[in-house]
């Protein structure tokens, strides 16, 4: 069996599962946020009763992150709904905006907080829950109804996905990042190339990636339609997890002879920086072939491209230089925000490097303009802006305006483009 099949077998009490089986899997962790939490809670109460209790208080994490810095009244009401529920149920893992416990973007915070452990099942009311497969968990996005069901029962009916294996070997050149790798893959297989499948990433280039960079890869598995992305845990994973939680876990691994539906091989040393042109994540083009695209704005943030290492990459490019267009930075979490002050390159903090480069005042952590959001959202597009963004989706209207155009790129390419005002291969600056 593959790692995905093994986790689902263990968590459903079966010896063996095969792709296509419908099984009742136990939920190891349920994640929700301010946009889908209130609806999930509504369903939980409607279906299980006003006095119902959640299946396990230790297995629910609520991380508000989407609409935090906005005057929108309903957005605030929704966070209040979460607060009331947390109180009513006595939930220990709630990271309340406006308090010191607030974190920011849920998919960056969840592993930071030690809530992601190898071999577990993680269900979240957000499609990018697939991020957490980077630590060897089975993690997938679900809707409010399924989440309400889990809240009451601790289980979910899951179809076992068939696995596509991506073997990435070779040494990653200094101008490439995990974001380039996943954009290459999505560009090759298409936005529905992995529909209903597990995407398993392996090979020496994956082994060499940090945990954060592995998260970037698994994060965008859903952009190819996958149910989950997954990377076998290794010593790096264990060190990362052990530094954050004392809870026990049992990792699982694919058998060497596990059957997969297809295998794709890449030599990463031969790849070049890419972008995904508007309006689909599979609309791949080499960054150097898009030199003629003039841009208005650069956005660095989100669960894909707003982690500390993403800002380190951007800072390496921007150090000692000036940006030519409006450049918006949104650290994903408070921890990343702190990292901007604490992390130095050549004796200068990341924050100082960015400020000297002339970026806009750095926003507080949240999803911000990654998904447009209420009209007063930081960085949201309102007109015909052309944006280079380290986020994950470039659908029409995704960042706010239906008329704006979003090019998805790595932090290196985004930073290089900020310096020149047009799409730029990082090797050219």
């Amino acid at each position, binding site marked *: 069996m593959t790692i995905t099949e093994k986790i689902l077998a263990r968590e459903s009490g079966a010896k063996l599962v095969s792709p*296509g089986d*419908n099984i*009742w899997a136990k939920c190891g962790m349920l994640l929700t946020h301010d*946009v*889908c939490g*209130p*609806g999930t809670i*509504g*369903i939980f109460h*409607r*279906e*299980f009763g006003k006095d119902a209790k959640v299946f396990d208080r230790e297995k629910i994490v609520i991380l508000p992150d*989407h*609409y935090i810095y906005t005057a*929108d009244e*309903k*957005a605030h009401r*929704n966070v209040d*709904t979460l607060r009331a529920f947390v109180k009513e149920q006595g939930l220990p893992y709630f990271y309340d905006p406006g308090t010191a416990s607030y974190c920011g973007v849920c998919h960056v915070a969840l592993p930071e907080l030690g809530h992601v452990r190898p071999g577990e099942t993680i269900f*979240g*009311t*957000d*499609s990018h*829950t697939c991020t957490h497969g980077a630590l060897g968990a089975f993690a997938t*996005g*679900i*809707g*409010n*109804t*399924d989440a309400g*069901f889990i809240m*009451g*029962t601790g*289980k979910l*009916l899951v*179809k076992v996905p068939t696995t596509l294996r991506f073997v990435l070997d070779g040494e990653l050149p200094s101008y490439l990042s995990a974001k380039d790798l996943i954009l290459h893959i999505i560009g090759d297989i298409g*936005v*529905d190339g992995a*529909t*209903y499948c597990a995407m398993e990433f392996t090979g020496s280039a994956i082994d060499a990636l940090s945990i954060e960079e592995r998260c970037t890869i698994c994060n965008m598995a*859903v952009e190819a*339609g996958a*149910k989950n992305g997954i990377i076998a845990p290794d010593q790096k994973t264990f060190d990362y997890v052990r530094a954050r939680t004392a809870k026990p876990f049992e990792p699982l691994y694919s058998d060497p002879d596990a059957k997969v539906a297809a295998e794709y091989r890449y030599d990463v040393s031969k790849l070049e920086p890419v972008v995904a042109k508007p309006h*689909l994540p599979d609309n791949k083009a080499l960054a150097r072939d898009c030199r003629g695209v003039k841009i208005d704005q650069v956005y660095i943030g989100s669960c894909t491209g707003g982690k500390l290492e993403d800002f380190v990459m951007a800072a390496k490019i921007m150090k000692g230089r000036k940006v030519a267009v409006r450049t918006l930075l949104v650290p994903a979490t408070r921890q990343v925000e702190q990292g901007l002050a604490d992390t130095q390159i050549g004796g200068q903090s990341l924050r100082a490097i960015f400020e000297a480069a002339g970026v806009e005042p750095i926003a507080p952590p949240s999803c911000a303009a990654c*998904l*447009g*959001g*209420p*009209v007063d959202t930081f960085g949201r597009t309102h007109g015909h802006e052309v944006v280079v963004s380290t986020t994950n*989706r470039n*659908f*029409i*209207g*995704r960042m*706010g305006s*239906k008329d704006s155009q979003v090019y998805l790129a790595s932090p290196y390419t985004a930073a290089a483009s900020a310096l020149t005002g047009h799409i730029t291969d990082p090797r050219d600056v």
Partner: protein
Amino acid sequence: MPKETLIRGPVYVLEDNIDTDLLIPACYLNLVPTIPEEYRKLGSYALAGLPETFPKFASNADGTTPYPIVIGGRNFGCGSSREHAPIALGAAGAKAVVAQSYARIFFRNSVATGEVFPLESETRLCGEFKTGDLAEVDIPKNTITRLADGKVFALKPVGAVAPVIAAGGMFAYAREIGMIKR
């Protein structure tokens, strides 16, 4: 509640890769679907993310849609896990989506909520219908018929999720099989 299995009315025709931001733009995600008034509002914003070249979907005066059937191409509902997407269609009064293929979460959410039937066509139908054409979807027979000339197009059998769809959603199904108490 058993669902109607014969759906008749004008169709609304879309293309490939209809994503959840087109189905319900993020600025409306502050609405909570379990609050009846906000459920109705979500319906009035169904497909509000489409470019202005498309006719308004929820164009009835009361915020519902005159189109009970939505036709799409490949990868319908890609993107976010927002259940607001099938809910917006269902709240607007759409009964079925007929597409060549679906993104996984949209399909699952449609089945789990029982808001719309996510049906798969055997062939691409985007070119066979224009918005406003009258059609009839017959779920037991797995067909969609173009009423103007009676041409019948095959739908794929619903498959493993048929019992969940027949029950009317995830909770109804779980009660039926005794997973949760009635």
